[in-house]
């Protein structure tokens, strides 16, 4: 089973990298971009076959180290 953890700065926390990308897109005349948020994606290959167990485990990983929940939110999906 593979878990995908997406990590982004929380809404309301200014994202300097997202902002810089937005400026670059504007400068390249890509119109219609309202906002850009930059995050990171961590892909975990797991031995578990039970999604519920795996979700609990990955949530703990996200809380303990993968994300800094003072400034970041995360989502977990399985494929």
């Amino acid at each position, binding site marked *: 089973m593979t878990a995908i953890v997406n990590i982004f*700065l929380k809404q309301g*926390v*200014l994202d*300097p*990298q997202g902002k*810089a990308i937005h400026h670059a897109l504007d400068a390249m005349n890509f119109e219609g971009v309202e906002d850009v948020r930059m995050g990171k994606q961590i892909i975990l290959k797991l031995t578990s076959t039970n999604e519920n167990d795996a979700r609990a485990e990955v949530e703990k990983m996200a809380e303990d*180290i*993968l994300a*800094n929940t*003072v*400034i970041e939110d995360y989502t977990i999906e399985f494929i």
Partner: protein
Amino acid sequence: MKHITILQFPGTNCDLDTKYAFEKLNCTTTIVWHKETKLPENTDLIVVPGGFSYGDYLRSGAIAQFSPIMKAVIAYANSGGKVLGICNGFQILTEIGLLPGALKRNIGLHFISKFQTLKVINNTNDFLQKCNKDEVLNIPIAHADGNYYIDEEAFKELEANEQILLRYSDEHGEPIVINGSVTSIAGVCNKTKNIFGLMPHPERALETILGSEDGIKMLEGLIA
């Protein structure tokens, strides 16, 4: 004579400057490798120095918090021992939750390396006791992730408890935007005022001939 314990992670690069600084102030020092599990028994102060622990992978300071020595550091801090985190050390102390808030990428995305004037906001603590309130100090900064973030509620608490140590300012003490930090904060301490963190490098400001000696009175406060 005070004994200073200086932590060393893979990627730490200010350990020797820190050792030099405290030895200049007549302290003895031990550099402790992160794989150790015990601190020297005569430790009077732990310094988590600057650098790029674990290459800043994941987030600055994120991986270092799980080094074996950190358990002993947390126990030392929680029993009232003094801990100072400089630059990457500040990032590590926020990641571990010993200090409030977090440090994000600088607002302009650049690594900033220069002398910077700072205003002393609160001196009711060991670290800045030798400095005057509102005094302007000249200390080098060198960081890419120094953009201090804290939510509004926690900020109010920080302000009320006099936990804000320093703000980036112009030479008259007026706060200025350097890296996007909330209200230009450059350093904070915990509620019980035994854990200190700042992005500027006092250990690099010890000689007038090299630009400033304002770092001396900061470090002296911790060993008074």
